């Protein structure tokens, strides 16, 4: 909003105040995220800038907290950093284990949510879908219902959802479940819980992409002799792919950032990064948390850029085909 030429002096003052207010709000939004980056290079175990850091003394900065991420839980952190040292990091270091868990849980939860969510969104966006509004409300509700309620319900259910490990079913499915054969304290339990939480995001982004989708393209494909499978992979999928990918990224981030369900249904083997951070903040808060936070901020910047590029591509594609 540029200032009109007829603005009075009072309006001019107000306009600049308004710009300052906006600037302050942007600062409020972004400063807390960026502040962790310099703080994580602190040489001292403090959560604030030391005198040395403020005077840009190089000795005030260090990578020690990033080093902690590798050495915490390491059986012999002080030995020479050769290949055995690094393989011990990969196998034993607490934060590395947490990162691996987070990654695998996030990946499978995303695949589950994206496949089920995309197929469902295709059905939901057909005009003849019955009870559309009700089903939509149900599928979005994991985002609206407080996470604590979902976590409490799942902790009751997953502790009962067991297959005896010595039964025939247990022999097949046992590997996915906990030692007692339950969903509780198992990787599968966490994956399933995170998939439910990611579904609303997939549904929302994919149905949003499908609203601009020209349904006559499907009929055109059919009339040209394509079977439903070819139509899906050659016509529908390329057009909705940006929506599917950004939905998948949302689902992944949801899982990657989720801690409450993990606290309630997971066991010691399912230590994830957010859980490790949560415990770290609650118990002994050390700048190692800030080092993790910095890495996570970097990841979120990358994800944001990806989603923005996808969105622009999607808009461009739809600009060509629709309207």
């Amino acid at each position, binding site marked *: 909003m540029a200032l009109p030429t007829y603005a009075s002096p009072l309006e001019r003052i107000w306009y600049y105040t308004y710009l300052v207010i906006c600037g302050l709000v942007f600062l409020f939004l972004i400063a807390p995220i960026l502040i962790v980056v310099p703080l994580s290079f602190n040489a001292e175990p403090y959560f604030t800038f030391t005198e040395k850091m403020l005077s840009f003394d190089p000795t005030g900065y260090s990578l020690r907290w990033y080093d902690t991420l590798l050495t915490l839980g390491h059986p012999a952190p002080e030995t020479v950093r050769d290949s055995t040292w690094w393989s011990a990091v990969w196998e034993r270091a607490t934060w590395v284990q947490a990162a691996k868990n987070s990654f695998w849980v996030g990946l499978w939860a995303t695949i589950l949510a994206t496949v089920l969510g995309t197929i469902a969104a295709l059905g939901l966006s057909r005009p003849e879908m019955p009870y559309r509004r009700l089903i*939509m409300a149900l599928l979005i509700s994991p985002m609206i219902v*407080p996470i604590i309620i979902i976590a409490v319900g799942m902790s009751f259910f997953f502790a009962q959802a067991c297959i005896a490990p010595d039964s025939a079913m247990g022999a097949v499915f046992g590997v996915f479940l906990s030692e007692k054969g339950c969903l509780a304290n198992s990787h599968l339990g966490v994956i399933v819980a995170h998939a439910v939480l990611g579904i609303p995001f997939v549904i929302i982004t994919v149905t949003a992409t499908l609203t601009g989708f020209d349904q006559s393209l499907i009929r055109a494909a059919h009339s040209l002799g394509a079977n439903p499978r070819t139509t899906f992979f050659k016509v529908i999928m390329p057009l909705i792919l940006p929506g599917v990918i950004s939905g998948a990224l949302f689902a992944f981030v949801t899982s990657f950032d989720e801690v409450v369900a993990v606290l309630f249904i997971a066991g010691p083997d399912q230590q994830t990064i957010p859980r490790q951070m949560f415990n770290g903040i609650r118990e002994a808060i050390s700048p190692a948390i800030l080092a993790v936070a910095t890495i996570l901020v970097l990841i979120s910047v990358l994800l944001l850029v990806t989603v923005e590029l996808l969105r622009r591509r999607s808009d461009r594609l739809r600009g060509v085909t629709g309207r």
Partner: protein
Amino acid sequence: MAEATNELLTTADGRPLKAALQAAQARAKRRAFLLVLPLLLFVLLTFLIPIGLMLKRSFEHDGFASSAPALVAWFEANPDFNPADPPEEAYAALVQDLARMQTDKTTGIAGTRINYSVPGTISLFKKGAREAGDLTPPFKESLVAVDADWAKPALWRGMASASNVYTAEFYKVASDFKLNDDGWARGEDNERIYLYLFFKTFLISAIITFLCLLLAFPVAHLLATLPMAKSSLLMIFVLLPFWTSLLVRTTSWIALLQEQGIVNDLLVGIGLIGDDGRLSMMYNMTGTIVAMTHVLLPFMILPLYSVMRVIPPSYARAARSLGATSWTTFRRVYLPQTLPGIAAGSLLVFILAVGYYITPALVGGADGQLISNLIAFHMSKSNWSLAAAIAGMLLASILLLYWLYDRLIGIDRLKFG
């Protein structure tokens, strides 16, 4: 032509057109539904059934019913007994059950169950169970000699009620009702912890919603009126927090606001406050409000922005040219057009704030805790039924707000970025 209208329209293979169309539509419906079905089953199994189980749990507790069979049988046979003066047989059944609890080691479970409605029962049960083996008839006198509380009418009411596995008692407890000698009654004002916390949660959520609206309005307006290239650049400031881990944002607020934190250091550095006058902005309600406002702000900016972007600027120009001042133009012309965005953003932020757990748990300290934290607390103390009842009440209020949101705005309008 008149004959043709009487004749039934048919398809090429001779079926009536109406029936063929209906069949085709039913088939299309079925196909659409079949696409949604796998997800519906998945959500049923992993979302609806767990929540249903939780609600079931909020109505049941077999801690007493399973460990006191003799007394349960007696209560069943004598539903109209006088709790002020139960007869000798009732005491005999009670002593028998107490002795059994001692051998089965179920005293704690049974005592805990009664303890919800009549506080102080756990130790009473433990003491009674230890002595039960040595008691002699008449049991009424001998048990009351162990502890006079065994004759309390409230206790007998509590046991009679707990002898049924299914009960609405946990909802009464979660609404601050207590069982006294005359029956259920509201607790004293200073004992109303649960409803007070509900009230506090709604109040804090309202404050956060208001703060978000206050901060989001100018920013959304700026983003909506700037040229596209500039506004998509500034949009990053809104979307980056949205994509950043909640725990990262909470951590940075701790770094910023704690007593030895950056904001306090800055204030001391410029001499606004003394070193001993550092503000405590973390681990209390202020911390919860500030951190949650930051976390939820994008959820307010985005709906506001999407409404403001499509408001034509010509309306405001027309109002100005007709002689309205800039304030009148804003109040009478611009603001009413943003109302759908305000409603959407406020409801969304409020709904999300009411159920918030992580931020208050980490930065709330003692007085910044919300209702979700109380649920987690009772879960950690194994008070599952009570936790489930509080969660049930929270769920009911959320569903009401969700229904309102769907009515006013429509969930299919929900979008990100």
